[in-house]
């Protein structure tokens, strides 16, 4: 029982970060059909900028804000300088563009920052909370709470505001969106900015637990992508479910099956899920129209 709770929380914490990355993937994918492999770099920027801003003497909240701003600016630049000029290119070409962008951002980060690992202090102390005999980090609760707040906020934005609906409209039909007077370039930029912000917040929340360095983005992008696909791409709920599930899978696989093959177990499950449900868990099962 203790072990179960322990594994559950470990999985949820990791999964929450995957979920945030997957959510970023989904948002940009919905608005532009671009699978943004630079999504992990936003998480890296969130953590790294906060670390270096705090080293420069800023208090945590200000440093975090700065980090989000830097990530958002990076996201906007990515959109303006790489995605926008490549408009009309094929899906795979756009993927390669974002991979190029991710190498570029990482390359710049290793110059601007350094190549070492860094930590942030936990927001509310390191003293574990005891729950059913298991030890839960206060920072884990920050991660879970933060992720939940982001998901809720995003949901309200998309469902309840006209601007949010404009984003969904652009996702559904870009031409029609332009024709009703939506500036789709702004909407796309918005999607990149929001994705970057989500990623950065994830990075800030999780760095006290996981540490960070200029290179942490690649792996997160990979896992986030897998999570987004597991849930069914283009579906924000799917992204969150996929992320949490992937985190739990890894955690329980490590705890109960084999820590060596824990990533293998996770990907094996993804493969099996896709074989059974080719559109992911919550993806739209569109009947092909001919």
């Amino acid at each position, binding site marked *: 029982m203790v072990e179960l709770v322990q594994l559950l929380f470990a999985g949820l914490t990791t999964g929450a970060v995957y979920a945030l990355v997957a959510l970023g993937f989904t948002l940009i994918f919905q608005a532009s059909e671009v699978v943004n492999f630079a999504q992990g770099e936003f998480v890296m920027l969130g953590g790294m900028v906060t670390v270096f801003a705090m080293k420069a003497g800023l208090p945590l909240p200000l440093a975090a804000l700065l980090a989000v701003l830097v990530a958002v600016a990076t996201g906007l630049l990515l959109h303006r300088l790489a995605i926008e000029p490549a408009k009309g290119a094929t899906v795979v070409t756009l993927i390669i563009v974002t991979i190029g962008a991710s190498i570029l951002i990482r390359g710049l980060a290793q110059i601007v920052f350094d190549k070492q690992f860094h930590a942030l202090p936990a927001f509310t102390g390191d003293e574990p909370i005891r729950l059913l005999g298991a030890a839960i980090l206060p920072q884990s609760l920050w991660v879970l709470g933060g992720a939940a707040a982001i998901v809720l906020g995003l949901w309200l934005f998309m469902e309840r505001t006209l601007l949010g609906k404009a984003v969904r*409209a652009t996702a559904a039909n870009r031409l029609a969106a332009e*024709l009703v007077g939506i500036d789709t370039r702004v909407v796309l930029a918005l999607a990149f900015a929001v994705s970057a912000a989500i990623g950065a917040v994830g990075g800030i929340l999780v760095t006290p637990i996981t540490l960070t360095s200029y290179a942490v983005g690649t792996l997160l992008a990979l896992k986030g992508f897998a999570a987004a696909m597991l849930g069914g791409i283009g579906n924000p709920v799917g992204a969150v479910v996929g992320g949490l599930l992937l985190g739990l899978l890894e955690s329980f696989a490590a705890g109960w099956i084999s820590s060596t093959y824990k990533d293998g177990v996770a990907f094996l499950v993804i493969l099996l899920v896709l074989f059974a449900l080719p559109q992911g868990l919550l993806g739209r099962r569109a009947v092909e129209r001919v």
Partner: protein
Amino acid sequence: MPPPEPLLEVRGLRCGYGRIEAVKGVDLEVREGEIAALVGANGAGKTTLLRAISGVLPIRAGSIRFAGEPIEGLRPHERVAHGIVQVPEGRQLFAPLSVEDNLRLGAFRRGRERTEANLARVFALFPQLAERRDVPAGALSGGQQQMCAIGRALMAGPRLLLLDEPSMGLAPTLVEQILATVARLRGEGVTVLLVEQNAVAALSLADRGWVLETGRIAHAGSGRALLDDPAVKAAYLGL
């Protein structure tokens, strides 16, 4: 008294995709309150021309003036703000969003109060939409989708409505209904530029028409005159 300035004036317009020039120097004008019809074979450049007017396709040469102002430098959403609204070919609804959301998004550039009034007006025009306001637009039947698309355009309060193939893929009874709606809109003071496959129906409705042939205007005149033109009849109307 000189004739009033045209609402839309297109001069020497050229545009196309890639290496293909689909519209090769077109002049036309539409006056306030008219129904104007653009007919011609598939691939003649009708849709391309409409896309250039609404701004989703960049032009290569020529000018477009709307209400006396040059608009060729404006982006599509800015043209919507000026009152040029296109109902695209194939409806292009926001399929996963509800009918009401589709309509409200039509008024994306307008104030909230007028949106409510407009919504009531559209629902009055198309009562079937009111009944299904919470249904995802993608689940509507073909005719209802066309109504929704026209309704969405009306939400923007257009001065010039660009209608691209509103009858495409619809059963004959529905075509009649849609065309009747177009005639009714003229009565409400909306200027309409109509592109139609169904040339006879379109021209019999239109005050003014053009026959487009491989990117150039081949015949122009009042709708009636074009319908009676033997050359047009033989080549385009199949009569």
